[in-house]
């Protein structure tokens, strides 16, 4: 066939290297994982770190403890349903909860920008006090630093936490088995949309509040009821999709989701529709997935639904022997498709 000269395929020089860190490197997606692998995991290689779980299980002197840390840089600092302080306590409490640990003690370190309002700092501290009290943890040590005006973003908070593991299960991706059920504790996307609603350029009127909440109490109830939990993961940045991809990537198994049962509130859906966001990738702060043997699923579901933060829990899918390391989803239309991690932050679109 004669080549038509006026139609020339074209494409740009590829960008394969990132000499500078981008926002996307913190977005919870592929780029962040690449950064962590290449820069940090390779530098600090040890068996505990290699489990790559949200919190580390350590055994000093025979006691089984969970140990974790997280930093909070959210903007805006105050959003419907919470603030950076609420996140700082609950985020770390939840990381401990995901090992099935009973959270006990937290540290908190503050990096405060010169000029930041003392009243705002007080508000944040009170939020943390309230959240710590609800989560039944004590803040036992901390640190305070002030940086030049323009070198911070108001305030950054880091919290580290220690919890006691009172069960003898191995709660990790390595325990996942084909045939397991996947429980999702509630509706998705609320936190990400609540935060976005307060941002310039994307603002809208809404009553949506962040779903930020402590999960430890419910997890401990499940464990005390004798539910044989295989794996837990709280949904944070990157949403439900990223959490599941992270779990299954290093296993031989496949996670299969059923789109039509995943709960999403209508106003969250509305926001996702107008911004062109896929709710599967929108951040949450008070939701988790629980992977467990199918035989335990109904009992666990009943327990979750009786708890205030699990009222809308569903069986969202199951673990199969299919394409190893993949997450697939049966769409509402009934067709199966791959669910992957995004390479960076999900951006609003017009197309």
């Amino acid at each position: 066939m004669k080549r038509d000269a006026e139609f020339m395929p074209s494409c740009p020089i590829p960008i394969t290297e990132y000499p500078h860190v981008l926002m996307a490197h913190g977005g919870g997606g592929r780029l962040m994982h690449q950064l962590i692998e290449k820069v940090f995991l390779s530098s600090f290689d040890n068996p505990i770190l290699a489990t790559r779980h949200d919190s580390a299980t350590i055994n000093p002197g025979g006691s089984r403890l969970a140990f974790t840390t997280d930093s909070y840089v959210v903007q805006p600092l105050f959003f419907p349903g919470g603030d950076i302080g609420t996140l700082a306590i609950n985020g770390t409490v939840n990381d401990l909860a995901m090992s099935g640990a009973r959270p006990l003690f937290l540290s908190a370190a503050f990096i405060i920008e010169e000029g930041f309002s003392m009243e705002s700092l007080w508000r944040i501290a009170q939020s943390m006090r309230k959240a710590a009290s609800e989560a039944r943890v004590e803040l036992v040590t901390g640190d305070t630093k002030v940086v030049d005006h323009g070198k911070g973003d108001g305030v950054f908070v880091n919290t580290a936490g220690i919890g006691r593991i009172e069960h003898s299960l191995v709660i990790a991706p390595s325990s996942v088995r084909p045939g397991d059920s996947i429980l999702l504790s509630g509706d998705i996307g609320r936190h990400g949309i609540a935060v976005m609603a307060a941002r310039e350029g994307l603002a809208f009127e809404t009553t949506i509040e962040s779903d930020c909440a402590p999960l430890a109490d419910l997890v401990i109830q499940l464990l005390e009821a004798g539910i044989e939990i295989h794996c837990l993961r709280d949904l944070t940045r990157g949403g439900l999709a990223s959490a599941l991809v992270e779990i299954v990537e290093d296993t031989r198994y496949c996670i299969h989701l059923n789109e039509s049962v995943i709960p999403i509130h209508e106003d969250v859906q509305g926001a996702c529709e107008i911004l062109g966001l896929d709710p599967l990738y929108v951040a949450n702060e008070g939701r988790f997935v629980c992977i467990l043997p199918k035989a335990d699923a109904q009992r666990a579901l009943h327990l979750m639904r009786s708890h205030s933060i699990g009222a809308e829990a569903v069986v969202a899918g199951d673990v199969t022997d299919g394409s190893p390391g993949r997450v697939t989803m049966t769409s509402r239309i009934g067709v199966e498709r791959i669910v992957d991690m995004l390479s960076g932050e999900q951006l609003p679109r017009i197309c």
Partner: protein
Amino acid sequence: MCLAVPGKILSISGDDPLTRTGRVSFGGIIKEVNLACVPEASVDDYVIVHVGFAISTLDEKEAEQVFEYLREIGELEQLEDKTPGCTEQA
């Protein structure tokens, strides 16, 4: 292009037709939308919104059309005596 979403007009403000705006609800989320291109739209109407602009008023009668068409072709298939798979080579 083109992400445009149907939303319900809750209230309208502005006298100048070019800067006439409405508070439009998308499942409970409310955004201020420019209504300059839909002068006929009123409160409780649904409009199709793209990047903060209403580009049409949704015709609620026509909204059923997708399902009516399906019913029509369904009935057509039942009436026809046609054997599927009979083709002629082009």
